[in-house]
Structures are given as structure tokens and as C-alpha cells.
């Protein structure tokens, strides 16, 4: 899929452009319409690098907008009405780190914040870290795909997109992971981060490294109807 950053001068847009150029991903497009959906980065970097790589891996020609709102983490749900102004129909995917919160707490907070902005939730399809909401806001109907970054197989104190990057390093570069904080662990790999990204570009299968992100972005890209979600494997 192709990415269309909705603020080309933002740090995330620059990062996506940087990684796209460095690894010849060719995922940025100047074509703006129609947007199949919008990806909201609740935490910024390195989520932007991951979205760029996964967009390359998912291939396809559909165009997705990318935004990094000023608000962080759960605060990003307040901007959904504004996003709906530029998205006539389609889907919104929010990538958010789990941090040290319980998953149920995060999802119930998402529901509370959606109600707070006047969004009606008609239905929800739930998986561990991937919830798909069928919503209505004013006259607009949309699907909200909430992807919570983190992997339960690690006993980190906090979970974030770095869990996945460290797993990539472990699996693809045979690096031993013994940090308690994934952000610190990823930071210590500073000199090998490019190597991880390069391997991710060409690795055979990323489904076990980015399970919820790949599934969530596929939902955004392939556009199944909501009822199909109940029967998807």
C-alpha cells in the first residue's frame, strides 16, 4: 500500500520519507484521492518506520493517509471528528503502545473516549491486541481499528512497538534480548537498527513479529465488510 502523510513537514512524515529513500521502499505517493483509510500514530517514532516497512510488505496500490496528532496516546481519540472531515468514507487505524497498562483498561478507555466525543459504537470485534469498532459519528459511519503494540511473550514492564523490533532483532539478527525496558533495549541496538530494518524489508514472514499490526493494516487495506470480520480466521 502507499502512504500519503497529511502533514508532509511533520517529523513522522520526514521519517517515513527517510526510510523509504534509504531502503528504496517507494511507498510515498503524491496521489491524494481516494484515501482508503487513515493511520493515526499515537506514539510517533519508531512506529512511523514500522508503518513504512509494513506498507511496503503489504504491497498493493491503495493509498492510506498517515497522521501524527499533537495529542499523544489515548488523547488521539479526541481528533477523530476532525479526521472524519477529510475521510469521506473508510477506516481509521490507531497504533498505540500498551505501555504498562492493562489491555482491558486501554480498550475500555478507548470506548469511554469515543462516547465522550459523541461517537456511537454499534459493534466490536475483539482479539487480544486488535479491536475493530463499528462506529457512527454524526452522519458518518466508519470502522475504527485499534492496534495495541506489544507482545505478551516478553515479560517487559512496559510494552510498545519496540517489543516487535526487538523480536525482529532476535529472530533475524540472532541478538539476545535481556533488557527489562524494550525502549532501552532498542536504543542500545542503535548501531544495528538499520540492519534490522533491512532484514525486515526482505524477511519471508513477518506475521509472528508484527501479528496485530499486519492484521490491522490488512483490514485497512483489503477493506472487508464488518460482518466478514466475524468469520475471518
Amino acid at each position, binding site marked *: 500500500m502507499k502512504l500519503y502523510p497529511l*502533514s508532509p513537514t*511533520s517529523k513522522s512524515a520526514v521519517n517515513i520519507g527517510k526510510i523509504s529513500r534509504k531502503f528504496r521502499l517507494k511507498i510515498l505517493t503524491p496521489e491524494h484521492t481516494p484515501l482508503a483509510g487513515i493511520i493515526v500514530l499515537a506514539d510517533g517514532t519508531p512506529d512511523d518506520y514500522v508503518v513504512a516497512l509494513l506498507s511496503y510488505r503489504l504491497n498493493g496500490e491503495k493509498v492510506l493517509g498517515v*497522521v*501524527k*496528532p499533537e*495529542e499523544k496516546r489515548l488523547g488521539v481519540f479526541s*481528533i477523530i471528528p*476532525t479526521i472524519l*472531515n*477529510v475521510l469521506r468514507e473508510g477506516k481509521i487505524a490507531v497504533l498505540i503502545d500498551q505501555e504498562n497498562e492493562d489491555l482491558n483498561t486501554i480498550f475500555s478507555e478507548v470506548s469511554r473516549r469515543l462516547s465522550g466525543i459523541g461517537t456511537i459504537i454499534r459493534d466490536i470485534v475483539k482479539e487480544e491486541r486488535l479491536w475493530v469498532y463499528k462506529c457512527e459519528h454524526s452522519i458518518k459511519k466508519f470502522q475504527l481499528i485499534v492496534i495495541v503494540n506489544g507482545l505478551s511473550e516478553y515479560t517487559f514492564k512496559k510494552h510498545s512497538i519496540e517489543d516487535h523490533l526487538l523480536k525482529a532483532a532476535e529472530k533475524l539478527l540472532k541478538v539476545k534480548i535481556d533488557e527489562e525496558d524494550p525502549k532501552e533495549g532498542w536504543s542500545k541496538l542503535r548501531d544495528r537498527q538499520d540492519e534490522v530494518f533491512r532484514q525486515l524489508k526482505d524477511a519471508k514472514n513477518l506475521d509472528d513479529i508484527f501479528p496485530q499490526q499486519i492484521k490491522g493494516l490488512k483490514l485497512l487495506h483489503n477493506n472487508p465488510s464488518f460482518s466478514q470480520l466475524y468469520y475471518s480466521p
Partner: protein
Amino acid sequence: MIKKLRLENFKGIKSGEIELAPLTILLGANNSGKTTILEALFLAPNPFRQVPYVAGGKTKVAAEIVHLMHETLNSEGYAFLFNRYASKEARIECKVDGEGYLLQFIRDDPRIYVSISKGIGWQTKVSNKEIVRVGELYTDKNYISLFTQKALINNTFLLSSSLIRFGYNYLNNNWALIVNLGVCKRVAEEVSALSNEKYTDLTIEPFLGGRLSINAYTRDGYRIRLGDLGEGVQNYIVARVLYEIAEPEVFLWDDVEAHFNPKMLLSISEWFSNVVDKGKQVILTTHSLEAARMIAGIGGEKAKIYLTSLNNGVFKAKELTLKEVEDLLKAGIDVRVAEPLLL
């Protein structure tokens, strides 16, 4: 006040309209029709009226200035006024203080009849239609025939950084008039507040070789040629003096942010608001979100931001409040990029 503009087959715009506020800021992508809107408004009061611009040693009329702006197209004549150079009729319609007004360019190659719905002209029959002709342009050469030199609706004046040199030439040729306006000291002091150097007046004096040049006169008694000052300072000085000479009811400025740092832009924003407070109208184009937010913020309720788009010749403009622009920014959406999605 010009409250509404409607265009048909004028330059790149096949059709489109826009409401206009006392302070209108047009924000949009390249080639989204912003400059065409300003050019239409500049021509509307009468393409044959003289404007304070000098090129080739002569004071020009509005149509010639628009022609000069398109000189890089390397073609003579006025066929560029027509959509795709091929339309037979271009229309500029304005709603001025509740009344309709129409300027038409009607083509009968190589002649272009210019007809205005107000004022005195020559009754002429073109393609079985009666028109009131006030002048003629030509498709194959740069020639104008004049019938009247007055503005027939609210007088407009267009400024852009590419026009500054023609304005400078005008100042050079009309120095006595400018000095007697009493504006030079005021402008020099205003510029001093925005620059590290302190100027007390603007003068015209012989430079090396004896040719006259406009100078900024410093508090220490030095003279600095206007052309040797930074481009932003030059543009500001020329713009301020030209505005006083032209006394337009509608002031048009294309790419207003060009060459200005935020401090100078802030001062210009305040100037625009003062102009609007005096009952005049200001219409600007910009690519800078920073400039649009600053000008609209200072302009308050009288200011409106319009997001423009041009698609297959269809011009659209969407009004956005400053709050809407801010909300989109908070959401990580730059209106200049989201314009096709918002319109």
C-alpha cells in the same frame, strides 16, 4: 466591498466562484487558481485604467501588467486570458455592494472586445449580441485601444514580488508626488522598527555615475540605495508607498509571505487589519500556513481563510475558520495537503 466573484473561461478557470470577506486569505496548492482570482479582481474595475507601475519607461494599464506577469509564456497578445487559449468568451462577474457587475472578453480573432456592464462605452454587435465596448485587446499582438481610464467599480490594486520592480520604476519617475504625500518618513520609521538599521526618511538622489536612485536615509546620515537593502525591506517600503499612491478600495497581494520573516509579516498583518478597519478590503494569497494563521488571527472576525482547488478547470473554495485550521493541525493534518480531501 466586492462580496462575490464568479469566473467563466477566464485563464485556467473554466468555472468557479468565491465569496469574499473584508480580509480574505486564499490558501492552496500550486496551480489551485489563487493568482487567477487576484488577476480577475485586478482587471475587473477596468482593464484599461492606469496603475502605478512603469515598464519600458511608460506607466502601464492593468491589462498590460497582467500581460507582463505572463511574459514568461513567451507569447504576445492576450489569448492567455481565455481558458485553454481557445474559449470564445471569458467572464468576470462581481457582486459589489449588492449589485451585479460583469466584465467580458469576447473574441473575434485577432480582436478581443472588452465589454463592461457599467459606465460608458461603444454599442457594438458581436456574434449577434449587443455589447458595450470599452476597449479592445488583440490575440496576436500586445496592443490596447483605450476608451476610458477610470475604475468603474471599487478600484483594486495588485501587488506581488514580481511586480515590485515595476512599482519601484513608478516611484523613481514620480518622486515629487511621493514626497508630497508625506508618507516617506512614516514608512522609514516603520521599517526602522523591524530592522537593525534606523532610517529617518526615503530620498531620491544621484548615485555614483549621476543616475538617480531611491535611498533610505539613516539616522547617522548615511544613504543606502533601496536596491541594496534586503528584499523583504525593499518590498515592504515599495508596497507601503504604492498603496498610498494607488489608494485602492480593494488591495490584492499575491504570495504575501515571500521574502518576509515572521517579525515583518506580523507588522504587515497589523497593517492589513488597519486597512480593513478603515472600510477597505484586502485579499491575499499565500502558501504559508504560518502567514495565514497570523494574518487571520490578527484580522479577527473580519478575516476568512479560503482553501482553494482547481480540478479540470473547476475552481472551488472552501471557507475555513481559524479554529478549523488549528484543529486540523492538532490532528496532524496540514490543510494545504488535505485540500483535495476537504473540498
